[in-house]
């Protein structure tokens, strides 16, 4: 990120930040565990999508399409909330995951 920093005359007043700044912040760099999604097992209930704190679970036509590793920080919440009988997401240590 090499954006010009705004001066006090141009900056929106009152510590107001336009929405969408999380796009510039690639939380994927924090990840030590990677979620692996199993399309076969997945019933597309989308609970993981609702719970992911970084909106990293991409959905298309009502189905989990992929996990966006630029933003997935590896918190493991998706694996936790996936229904126990399904267990479609497993967390794998980053250095053991496929590159």
């Amino acid at each position, binding site marked *: 990120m090499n954006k010009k*920093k*705004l*001066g*006090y005359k141009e*900056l*929106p*007043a*009152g*510590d*107001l*930040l*336009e*929405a969408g*700044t999380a796009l510039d912040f690639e939380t994927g760099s924090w990840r030590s565990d990677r979620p692996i999604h199993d399309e076969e097992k997945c019933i597309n209930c989308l609970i993981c999508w609702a719970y992911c704190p970084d909106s990293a679970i991409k959905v298309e036509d009502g189905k989990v399409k992929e996990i966006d590793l630029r933003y997935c920080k590896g918190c493991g919440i998706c694996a936790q909330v996936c229904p126990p009988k399904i267990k479609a997401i497993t967390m794998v240590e980053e250095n053991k995951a496929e590159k």
Partner: protein
Amino acid sequence: MSKNIVAKTGNEAMAEAMRQINPDVVAAYPITPATEVVQLFSQFVADGNVKTDFVTVESEHSAMSATIGASAAGVRAMTVTSSQGLALMNEMLYIAAGLRLPIVMPEVNRALSSPINIHCDHSDTMGARDTGWIQIYSENSQEAYDNVLQTVRICEHAQVKIPGMVTTDGFIISHCMERMEMIADNEVKNFIGEYRPERYLLDIKKPYTLGSLDLQDYFFEHRMQLAQAMCNTGKIILEIGKEFGDKFGRKYGFYEKYHLDDAEIAILVMGSTAGTAKVVVDQLREKGIKAGLLKLRVFRPFPYRELAQELAHLKVLAVMDRADSIDSFGGPLFDEVRSAMYDLKDKPQTVNYIFGLGGREINLEMIEGVYTQMQDIAKTGEIPQRVNYLGVRE
């Protein structure tokens, strides 16, 4: 416009102003001597005289927090407090100003503990003087009422967008009934207009984050914006004070001068004591003594340029502080007024009187004594004591 003359205490006057403003949200917690403002207002809510969403909270910290939340969401929000309540809000006062929310807060001046005391002095609002809030002081019920109405316009002005507190002296104004004129409800409504913020959190079409982490790279710019907004505020206060005068017959500026222009000795004071001092000035003028008075109304923004000009011609000026900085030097008003005059080529001798702490009486004789001392200083050119404590027992 027919005159509606009524008898109201300062608290009633502020509550009536709030009824006429009809804010969308009021979140408040009771504290003597401001309780009555909220109590009367809650009656207006219960009776359906206002459409306000009244939020009862568990402390003043929460009162200011809820008011901030409501204001950020995009509505007109108010609260009321005094003394310890204001102290408890302190953290949130900075946040309201930093987020540039135009909250208007009636504040009833009362001493701060310890020792515990419920009576008037200005230590509470003086403790909030660097929070980024506008501060307007009132001499009586009429001014309290007029100031609350004007402050809505001032705070919400596009070039201002900072919160403001309007104060009265605890018990002396808040509980003392006086003659005053009320403006008709619809005229107040027209005067203050509708509140339409440019950005607000509940605007789902233009979402934004408010109050994000602001570190080394942007915090300074945001504080600079606040400082700049306070600089712009003076001009707006004068514009609105004039408009209010044109519409309703009572003009307001940064201060009121009373026999000041040809005075040789003068007192500068804020709040109800100005009324007492005016009587003394009248008495002294009858004796041919060139005594005058400057009653400061607007303490934040501090009108340093104008004050220096108005005071330059005096031989002696006594700044009367109803608060002490406990800094081994002088009261807060004295420090700032004296600093404002520093760049004058010819400046008056300036003395400080700290008075009325915890509601200690300040009467005609005591104020006359201040003028007598100023006469001595004018004659001898010597100041026996720069900072004086008026009315304290040795």
